[in-house]
């Protein structure tokens, strides 16, 4: 079974530019999450999709961040325009749901974003 795939693995852009991160979840997983870790801080929740619908986007920092999940499959996270404080590692995770009572997430390797 393929895991959660993220692209690109590393992106270096200048302040004010746009970057789009992509996540391909495990096939069949309805739940897709975006998390972020900025330098020196803990991993923090950004948002949660159930299929193509946003279930919870309470962690999105501001309106420069736009997440989509086309047809309930892959997801993109666009940052426009990027600011220095957006630098960090963006993790995508997916889960099949709550069949066992717990929401067990499988994480991707992350997309490292550096804004200069």
């Amino acid at each position, binding site marked *: 079974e393929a895991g959660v795939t993220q692209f690109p693995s590393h992106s270096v852009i200048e302040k004010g530019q746009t970057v789009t991160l992509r996540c391909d979840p495990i096939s069949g997983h309805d739940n897709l999450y975006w998390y972020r870790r900025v330098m020196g*801080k*803990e*991993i923090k*929740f950004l948002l*949660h999709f159930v299929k193509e619908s946003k279930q919870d986007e309470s*962690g999105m920092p501001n309106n420069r961040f736009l997440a989509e999940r086309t047809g309930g499959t892959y997801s993109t996270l666009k940052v426009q325009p990027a600011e220095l404080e957006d630098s960090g590692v963006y993790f995508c995770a997916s889960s099949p749901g709550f069949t066992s009572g*717990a*929401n*067990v997430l499988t994480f991707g*390797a992350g997309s490292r974003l550096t804004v200069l």
Partner: protein
Amino acid sequence: QKEVEQDPGPLSVPEGAIVSLNCTYSNSAFQYFMWYRQYSRKGPELLMYTYSSGNKEDGRFTAQVDKSSKYISLFIRDSQPSDSATYLCAMSAPKAAGNKLTFGGGTRVLVKP
């Protein structure tokens, strides 16, 4: 104050020793408790999860949850150099109350041969 506190380490132990990791938390709504292992430049990998209080054992790993003290632990027996990684605790409330994970900052562990 952070919702989940975890000592960043690094924690250095000789091969074969027991590694003891812990987290404290403040949100009494948390009922699911997880431990993730993260190698450098990789994503977090789930090691164990437990529901509510109690102990759970899986091979060399034992997870303990004490909800009355809001304290969780992970023990790694017979530690190996391949156990060198960052260990993250994570918690979530039941589905009805939201299902996002709240992470600790991670503890870096180094097992020396």
